[in-house]
């Protein structure tokens, strides 16, 4: 039955690939209906499905079997739940968001493929299955980022994403093949029990690189902010709540191996660095979606921190709750952008609180991101904070928490502080936002609350333990509130203007995006320079062979001079020839 989870969206995609130009409207509803069916299926799996693994042979070669194997172990169920809940909401949102009829079939086709591969990824139980899903995620992400290829930066952004992800893919494939060769099996559970070996270290570090590329961790994190060139539903779906978490999820699945290989330290460090970079960039970025993208990098970094600290439980807590508020924030961003004629700079967009319920939903999401009780975000962040045994790490986490409550309210306040006349175009835009865009936001806002439930259920579900330490919770909340107040004072009340002259240097320190991009460009430049050198060699190699050939040909010019047209010299050659024969005979 799990197979249906994957098959339903795939079927939808297949239907969408058919030329349905005659029924432009039907297209999007097919996709939406399929996502609802998936949700139903996921619910059935959840309610009745036992924790099992199924596998069947895909192909086998010379005794090595390549199986498709799927499982509904707790971790799988967790991701499955997130995916199946978010998918219909995003599809619903897209019904309103994607207005251009000609784009709809392609959009829903790619989204359905993505949904299918995400489902497959969620329930994959061996490396082969996982890799198929993994690559499909990368490719659909690439296609969706570059969806609006007519935009100036979209193709570049898509290329950046696929290049980074390709690096990860190849490392992943290498790791899988190394593991498969070493252990003769690709199954997760079989490898967990196997003894460690030197090859395993290599493979695990390759997988880590792959996970870092997919989950946008330092030093591979810059693609995610560029990925915001894609349509907003894509950002809400792929680049915040599902696909980018594949890396974290994979490391969580393989967690025992990392413990065995003693590689948690590196995960912790990278996670922390990424979280800091994400937070600082989010503080200084002006692009309405990129702020959220950096925030996603920060959240993913925090998940890695939790893993690095040895707690799958904490990582999964954040993993679960983050999906809802981040998807909601992105939908909010899309809502604001749509009203502002696709303007992206928070300083030139106008916020609105006219639609109270929508506004409230966005505030709920922001508060949740800031980590305030009783929003679900609190439980996620607190889970990470509470496993920080090290004081340095803990203080850094608090600092990041402080920063995140500042930047998210900066994101909220700056568009909001500007007033506009009612009856202007923006007002009309806000008023005329399609209902299908708003309903999922309400649902998500409700889910942000309901996700608190995870606190009660998740520990038992994952066989872990997690409890709230009162002190840490209070400290976290206080810091978040202070952050909100600071943000209110600075951004809402306009203190920022006074700060602006002094914070230039601070800005440069915090906004690392440009520097990272410069490093990327430098690496590309070096590679290209090397490539040009190789190419020059290739060219000269070709030329030198050509020269050699030429010299053989021109040697004919020298040799032809023997034939000079003079009969007497021919006779002379004849005589020489006889002498030559004599010499030959003597030698022989």
């Amino acid at each position, binding site marked *: 039955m799990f197979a249906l989870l994957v098959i339903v969206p795939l079927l939808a995609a297949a239907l969408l690939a058919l030329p349905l130009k005659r029924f432009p409207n039907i297209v999007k509803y097919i996709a939406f209906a399929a996502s609802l069916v998936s949700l139903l299926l996921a619910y059935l799996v959840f309610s009745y499905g036992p924790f099992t693994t199924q596998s069947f042979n*895909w*192909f*086998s*070669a*010379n005794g*090595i079997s*390549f199986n498709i194997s799927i499982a509904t172990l707790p971790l799988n169920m967790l991701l499955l739940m997130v995916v199946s809940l978010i998918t219909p909401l995003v599809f619903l949102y897209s019904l309103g968001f994607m207005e251009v009829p000609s784009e709809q079939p392609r959009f829903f086709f790619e989204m359905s493929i993505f949904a299918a591969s995400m489902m497959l990824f969620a329930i994959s139980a061996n490396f082969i299955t996982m*890799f*198929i899903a993994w*690559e*499909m995620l990368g*490719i659909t992400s*690439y296609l969706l980022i*570059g969806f609006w*290829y*007519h*935009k*100036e930066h979209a*193709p*570049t952004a*898509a*290329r950046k994403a*696929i*290049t980074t992800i*390709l*690096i990860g893919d*190849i490392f992943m*494939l*290498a790791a899988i*093949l*190394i593991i*498969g*060769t070493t252990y003769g099996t690709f199954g997760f559970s079989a490898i967990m029990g196997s003894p460690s070996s030197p*090859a395993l270290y*290599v493979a695990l570090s390759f997988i880590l690189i792959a996970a870092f590329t997919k989950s946008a961790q330092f030093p591979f994190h810059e693609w995610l902010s560029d990925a915001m060139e894609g349509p907003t539903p894509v950002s809400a779906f792929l680049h915040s709540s599902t696909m980018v978490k594949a890396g974290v999820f994979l490391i969580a699945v393989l967690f025992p191996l990392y413990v065995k290989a003693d590689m948690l330290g590196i995960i912790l460090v990278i996670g922390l660095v990424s979280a800091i970079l994400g937070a600082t960039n989010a503080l200084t970025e002006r692009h309405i979606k990129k702020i959220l993208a950096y925030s996603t990098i920060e959240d993913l970094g925090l998940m890695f921190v939790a893993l690095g600290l040895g707690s799958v439980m904490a990582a999964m807590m954040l993993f679960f709750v983050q999906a809802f508020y981040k998807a909601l924030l992105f939908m909010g961003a899309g809502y604001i952008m749509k009203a502002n004629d696709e303007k992206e700079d928070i300083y030139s967009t106008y916020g609105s609180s006219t639609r109270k319920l929508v506004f409230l939903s966005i505030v709920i999401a922001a508060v949740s991101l800031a980590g305030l009780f009783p929003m679900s975000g609190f439980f996620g962040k607190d889970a990470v904070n509470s496993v920080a045994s090290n004081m340095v790490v803990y203080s850094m986490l608090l600092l990041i928490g402080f920063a995140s409550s500042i930047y998210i309210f900066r994101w909220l306040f700056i568009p909001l502080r500007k007033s506009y006349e009612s009856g202007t175009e923006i007002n009309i835009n806000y008023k005329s936002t399609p209902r299908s865009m708003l309903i999922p936001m309400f649902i998500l806002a409700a889910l942000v609350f309901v996700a608190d439930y995870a606190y009660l259920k998740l520990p038992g579900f994952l066989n872990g333990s997690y409890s709230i330490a009162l002190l840490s919770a209070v400290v976290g909340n206080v810091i978040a509130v202070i952050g909100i107040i600071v943000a209110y004072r600075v951004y809402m009340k306009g203190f920022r203007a006074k700060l602006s002259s002094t914070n230039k240097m601070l800005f440069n320190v915090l906004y690392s995006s440009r520097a990272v991009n410069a490093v990327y460009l430098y690496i590309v430049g070096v*590679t*290209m320079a*090397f*490539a*040009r050198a*190789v*190419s020059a060699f*290739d060219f000269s*190699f*070709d030329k030198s*062979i050509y020269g050699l*050939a030429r010299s053989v040909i021109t040697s004919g010019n020298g040799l032809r001079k023997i034939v000079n047209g003079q009969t007497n010299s021919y006779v002379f050659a004849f005589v020489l020839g006889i002498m030559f024969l004599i010499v030959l005979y003597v030698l022989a």
Partner: protein
Amino acid sequence: MIPIIGIMLLLLSIGLAVTIVFNEKYSKVISTVVSLIVMELAILLLYVFLAGAAGSPGSISENYMYYISNFGISLNFVVNPVSLALILMASVVSFVTMLSGNVENENLKVSSILVLLFELAAIGLFASGNLFIFFIFWDVGVVALFFMIYLLGSANRRMAAIKFIMYELLASLLLLFAIMLIYFNTPLHSFDISYITANYSSIPVGTQALIFSLFFFAFLINMPVFPVHLWLPDAHTEASTQGSMLLSGVLTKFGGYGMILAFIMLPIANEFTPVIAILAGFSAFYAAFVLMTQHDIKRIIAYTTIVEMSIVLVGISAFSTLGIMGATYAMLAHGFAISMLFLVSGTIGYMFSDRDIRSVKGVVRNSISTAYTFLTGVFATTGVPLTAAFVGDVLIFIAAIQKFSLYGAIPLFSIMLMGAFLYYVVNKSILSTKDASKPVEYVGTSQRVGFSILLFFIFLFGVLPFIALSIFSNFSI
């Protein structure tokens, strides 16, 4: 038992004769029908092979008249799993080439004749059971492609054609020398591949090494792998679309198939495998780097051929059942993928009268099918799962890791470089916004049909690999 190979070759010869005799008007129809039937026969051959493989060791052989009886050379065809896969690929690729490769619809008669002649050579070569026949078909194929480049190529075809024929005939002469040496060094003086395989040990070790290195260099030129790859980019750039499709799709497989034969016939190869693997790995990276500085779409794809064939050589050099299987599978996959990419780039060249990635922009705005087929071709080249190349790559690198431990995985990273640049091409020219360049022509139905046939096979062998792998069920070296 139906002599399928014989029928295929006979049919192709008849088709060739008919095409030569008939008017230009009918030549495309006749040759397309002939190659379609040949393709169906190839599928039938697969079926017969699979039906037979259940009980027997899984090879089909057909014997015809003696060609030169003094040398015991008969028209002797043997179908083994490797050759079966390649015959299938060659017949499909030739059919699509025939059907849709001639984008401009010019020179129909000449192109039909040459494609049929090449198909004849390719199928004969892959099916040949003795080295002499192998050699003959090899040269016929090379000459057919020489004329295809020269007669139907673009402006600078002269240089490209002469380079092509010099390199390829050098390979063929080395091959000739090697098979003559083999002949005189086997106890019963034989060209028969299975006989040589069984009796290699009676050849003195030094001679074995000599023969192997002759074979190796001949096939290295054809595959092509650094340092003898220089003919390929030029040949591709200048050849017509059909020429490029057959060149990369099928001709380079001559070398790959020959290399597999050489390894199987002369197990002394085992002593050279580390060197060969290093060379192949180096070549993959080398080609990937050179690829990154190219601007002509066809030239870029030409260099991907070098990368892919180097990886095939990595698989062969692993010299295990798995490695050979992987190499075969990769060649099968590569044949479909690369000929599709060349068909697409030919179509793009036709649409824009230009193939420079710096000036071609926004293919997707003009032809969605062309653009997304190109993209799928890129996936199929970089070995994305569910395309056939993935299976090949996986098998090759598992074999390589088994043989060379972790170092075996290194050449995999050349795909990373290649893929990164291919995506760059996609985003620069295919999925990008249109500005200056306007299409001159529009893509025809036959091209779309060609795309879909090749896509079908790419995904068929990617999603259901067991179809092709089951022919290897009794295969081991």
